[in-house]
């Protein structure tokens, strides 16, 4: 019996030591042997007691934890984890110890874990090398992308752009292509030509690299059309198979370069050959279908699963989840915080979906979920609500700042909405994209009306672009009256769109679309330049009137804004003291650092700054103290009920006194009645604006008003 036992123990490459004295670490060798064990304990004679000492420091250290097990009343065991021991003969042993207490026996089992060690070594080596390669790729891509963008965004007068570009991309280690908006012409580096070299065997005209990439995208990405039609960027992996012998995995990044009119002027395309990385991964079955970061199934694995369900004709709902403003988040908190967010998000979502459902990471910030065994929208909505609830709780950065995110969910049903993988993926992608109208959580089920709505948006955007080219905008001025002098001392410039067919359109109906499409930058620049002209004209007539203009969120974060503003001021030769910027409270909170930088700059040159819509959003006093500001504009909603509503009265009084404490002046917006006005006068409001004096009016009428007041 013991002989058999001994054989088994030797086969397991274990030795068993019985502990004689837990305090001194004295043990007796009771079972098992082998060369490795003798190497490990060269001084342990057969059946002789010996002490575990600093010759084997790891084991000696483990005795501390082991003693707790041995001295406990209950049976128990504890593993030490793997360690490497270098023997006196300079051999390396890969070992693990287990402390066991079993029926009054205190045992220390030592196992030679060479096989397990080698297996772990191999898989982890691989996994870590893959992680490193991706990290490096990411860094290189990021760097070049930023560099190219800055070159391409230079004004066209600097005509040697092409030469500069060619030089810069030639040095890249991976394929780089810069194509015209319609992909008809492009420049590419030799790495690109080499990557897509099809050999000389092929008789027909070889395809251009750009055409190959586009073809692969078209065939492998259901969202291909959406990417092109919405000028979106994309990055991901494509597989290029070209018989007889080419099979390459490419990591492709595809970025639009847009002009101020939000039209694509160029595309920047990177392609990295990741076949070796892929090959490494594929050696490891599980990793091949897994997303490295979140450890969720990856895109390929998800598409496979979709195929399977469709082939089996099992109905399901397909969800597509996209994090709103993920790029912004990534830029603000950094790439590794972005990673952290993705991991956390994947965990939260996984925790609220059923085990029969299937969740995967299918793109940078995109997740897809297959909700199985659900056949009606109501049930699907319940599942979605669970997901939204889970992400509504705040997230934390490594510095423990907390923040919230929102997501856009697109949903489609198989078989009702689509019957193929491509169709379904295309629909949910479009739905999620459509939901992204604001920064709130949104859910869009695929429908015809959604398709129509997205069409409508595209039309308005096109019209706006036309409007910029045709100069269809006009600035109106609304007078602001200084209460002390009872005279106009300022005016707010307000934009109107003179549509050739629809007539005058209010900003509320087009600014949000302009903001979303990026056209706001061009429109904003027009406003700035026109405001400067008007201010100059008024000043030349001998009036001392300040004009304030509104800035939208994207303008505040636009790096070029201040430079543009300075140029306009210089060109028009006006005193910056005659200009004011108005930003909303929301912008100050969302883009605090950008806002702070811009506002300090403009105040340095003498302009003033006011906070619009005050009181509607965050009302965080902390930023008011920190930011360089001059005026608060109390939102019209408070003024409206000021006479009847005691709450509003109290709020307005509080705001005024707080503002005065911070040395800020207060302007009340939307003043319409005498009662409202006298309340404001009584409470030391500094200035007022509203229909009681004047609506927004055209420049010549405004000038007439000024003359009358003289």
């Amino acid at each position, binding site marked *: 019996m013991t002989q058999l036992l001994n054989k088994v123990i030797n086969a397991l490459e274990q030795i068993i030591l019985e502990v004689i004295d837990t305090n001194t670490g004295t043990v007796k060798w009771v079972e098992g042997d082998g060369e490795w064990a003798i190497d490990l304990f060269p001084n342990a004679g057969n059946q002789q007691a010996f002490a575990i000492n*600093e010759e084997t*420091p*790891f084991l000696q*250290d483990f005795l*501390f*934890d082991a003693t707790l097990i041995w001295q406990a009343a209950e049976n128990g065991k504890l593993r030490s*984890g*793997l*360690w*490497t021991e*270098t023997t006196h003969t300079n051999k390396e042993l*890969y070992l693990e110890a287990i402390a066991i207490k079993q029926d009054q026996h205190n045992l220390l089992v030592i196992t030679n874990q060479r096989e397990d*060690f080698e297996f*772990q*070594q191999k898989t*982890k*080596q691989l*996994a*870590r*090398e893959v*992680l*490193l390669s991706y*990290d490096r790729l990411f*860094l290189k891509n990021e760097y070049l992308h930023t560099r190219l963008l800055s070159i391409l965004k230079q004004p066209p007068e600097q005509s040697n752009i092409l030469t500069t570009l060619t030089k810069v991309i030639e040095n890249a280690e991976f394929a780089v292509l810069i194509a015209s908006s319609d992909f008809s012409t492009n420049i590419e580096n030799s790495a690109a030509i080499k990557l897509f070299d099809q050999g000389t065997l092929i008789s027909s005209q070889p395809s251009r690299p750009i055409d190959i990439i586009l073809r692969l995208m078209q065939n492998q990405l259901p969202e291909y059309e959406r990417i092109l039609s919405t000028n979106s960027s994309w990055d991901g992996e494509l597989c290029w198979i070209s018989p007889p012998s080419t099979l390459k995995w490419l990591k492709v990044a595809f970025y639009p370069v847009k002009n101020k009119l939000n039209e694509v002027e160029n595309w920047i395309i990177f392609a990295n050959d990741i076949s070796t990385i892929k090959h490494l991964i594929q050696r490891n079955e599980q990793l091949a279908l897994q997303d490295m970061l979140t*450890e969720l199934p990856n895109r390929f694995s998800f598409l496979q699963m979709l195929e399977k369900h469709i082939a089996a004709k099992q109905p399901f709902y397909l969800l597509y989840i996209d994090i709103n403003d993920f790029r912004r988040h990534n830029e603000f908190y*950094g*790439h*590794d915080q972005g*990673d952290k967010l993705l991991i956390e998000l994947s965990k939260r979502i996984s925790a609220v979906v059923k085990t029969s459902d299937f969740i995967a990471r299918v793109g940078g910030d995109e997740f897809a979920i297959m909700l199985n065994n659900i056949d009606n929208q109501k049930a699907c909505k319940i599942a979605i609500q669970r997901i939204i609830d889970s992400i509504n709780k705040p997230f934390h950065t*490594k510095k423990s700042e907390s923040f919230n995110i929102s997501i856009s969910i697109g949903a489609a049903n198989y078989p009702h909405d689509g019957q193929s993988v491509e169709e379904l993926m295309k629909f949910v992608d479009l739905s999620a994209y459509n939901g992204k109208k604001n920064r709130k959580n949104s859910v869009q089920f695929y429908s015809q009306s959604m398709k129509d709505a997205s069409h409508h948006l595209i039309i308005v955007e096109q019209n706006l672009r036309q409007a910029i080219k045709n100069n269809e905008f006009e600035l109106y001025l609304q007078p602001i009256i200084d209460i002390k002098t009872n005279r106009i001392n300022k005016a707010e410039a307000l934009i109107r769109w003179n549509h050739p067919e629809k007539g005058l359109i209010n900003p509320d109906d087009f600014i949000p679309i302009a903001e979303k499409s990026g056209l706001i930058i061009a429109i904003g620049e027009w406003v700035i330049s026109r405001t400067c002209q008007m201010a100059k004209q008024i000043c030349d007539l001998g009036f001392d009137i300040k004009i304030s203009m509104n800035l939208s969120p994207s303008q505040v974060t636009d790096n070029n804004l201040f430079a543009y503003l300075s140029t306009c001021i210089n060109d028009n030769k006006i005193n910056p003291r005659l200009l004011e910027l108005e930003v909303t409270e929301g912008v100050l909170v969302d883009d605090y650092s950008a806002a702070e930088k811009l506002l300090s700059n403009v105040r340095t040159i003498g302009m003033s700054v006011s906070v619009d819509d005050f009181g509607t959003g965050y009302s965080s006093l902390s930023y008011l103290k920190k930011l360089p500001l001059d005026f608060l504009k109390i939102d019209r909603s408070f003024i409206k009920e000021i006479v009847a509503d005691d709450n509003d009265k109290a709020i307005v009084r509080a705001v005024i006194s707080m503002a005065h404490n911070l040395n800020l002046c207060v302007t009340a917006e939307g003043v319409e009645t005498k009662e409202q006005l006298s309340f404001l006068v009584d409470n030391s409001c500094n200035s007022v604006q509203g229909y009681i004096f004047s609506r927004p009016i055209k420049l010549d009428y405004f000038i007439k008003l000024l003359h009358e007041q003289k």
Partner: protein
Amino acid sequence: MIQKKICLLGASSVGKTSLVKQFVEGIFSEKYLTTIGVKIDKKTIFLENEEIQLMLWDMEGNDTYNVFQERYLRGAAGYIIVVDQTRATSLHEGLDIHTLVRQVTDCPAILAINKSDLPATWNMDDSENKSYQNLFDLQFSTSAKTGSNVEEMFSALAKLLLRS
């Protein structure tokens, strides 16, 4: 003879094993062989007429495949958080590990910003640099490849341990 246990901690592939190899054997290899589990190396140094044996615990890097285990720190006289200046993420991982270690021990800690022979891909501004310095007893910019600051770092740590 005094014995001191020193742990090397950090993300994977930052150069923990290479630093130990450079310090103990004076050699460096470009080839990356990831550490599994723990390996202990010893080196005896002389300091202020004292003989000190350093027990260098080189540990498997922490990442998705290996979570940090605080129990290996028991009995440590000091530890070194190694980060790789070509990968900004390794700094954040290093700081995370540091926070975890601080929950179990107050022993002296060193930040080793390794691979100083390669261009850094992150820029620390002065204030950041200061705030990290405050978290550690000492900070070194090392290269396991050229050996720059390696010896200096270990003996500075030993000196610190001798005094405490």
